[in-house]
């Protein structure tokens, strides 16, 4: 297998996704969860740009990546604000403590 540019990029994408998934499976700290989500979204962004390149529709892919950046930032902002509130109300950043919110 030659390491061409698309190959390298797809490996980055898969690697980032795997890291994110592993993190989401094992992490219990809310802020760490936001970090994991950020990592996975980076993968999605790269994948979109790559897909645009492979389809000959670079600009479409890039504009979608731009949307992803916006959405991803909002997710980070709201996620972190939630974490701050959870810390304040529940007293911990542990995800398991949040199950008390369940009836």
């Amino acid at each position, binding site marked *: 297998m030659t390491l061409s540019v698309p190959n390298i990029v797809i490996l980055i994408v898969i690697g980032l996704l795997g*890291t994110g*998934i592993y993190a989401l499976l094992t992490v219990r700290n809310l802020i760490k969860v936001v970090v*994991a989500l950020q990592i996975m979204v980076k993968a999605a962004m790269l994948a979109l740009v790559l897909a645009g390149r492979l389809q000959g529709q670079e600009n479409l892919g890039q504009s979608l990546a731009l949307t992803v950046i916006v959405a991803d930032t909002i997710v980070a902002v709201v996620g972190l604000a939630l974490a701050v509130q959870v810390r304040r109300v529940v007293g911990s950043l542990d995800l398991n403590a949040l199950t008390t919110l369940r009836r």
Partner: protein
Amino acid sequence: MLHLLTAVGILVCAIQAIRSRRLIVSALWLAGTSALVALELYLLGAPEIGVIELSVGAGLVTVLFVFAINLTGEEATDLRGLIKEPLAVVVSVLTIVLLGLLLVPGIDRAAPSVGEPALKVVLWGNRQLDLILQAVLVFCGVLGVLGLLSERESAPTEHNPLEGVE
């Protein structure tokens, strides 16, 4: 070559961001990942997206992380996950392998040449609904954060109130 170096850098940064025990260090590794992703985007021929990613992803979001970590305080992050470590490793590796098997072969092909309009036309002309929804999303995000932060006064204070935040 540069691609390869960036790739290794991105993955190392990402793994470090997850492995690191301290939140603030984790956030800094994430910033590193973001900056390298921006570089990779630039190398891929998307300089506009790259620069936005650099400023927003590596800049703004990192500031937010540092801010949030300051507000919540460092906390021991070595809580064990609910899922046993080996199971998590197996499942993640399985996902990586399957994705690799599916995606890597056949990716190395020539792009069909489709005449397509410039980025600004695609963005502002062809994806109007997305733009509207993006605006709504940003607006919702702002409202959400305002709502979350404004409940400060009404939040119960018996649970470990934070000093010096108000």
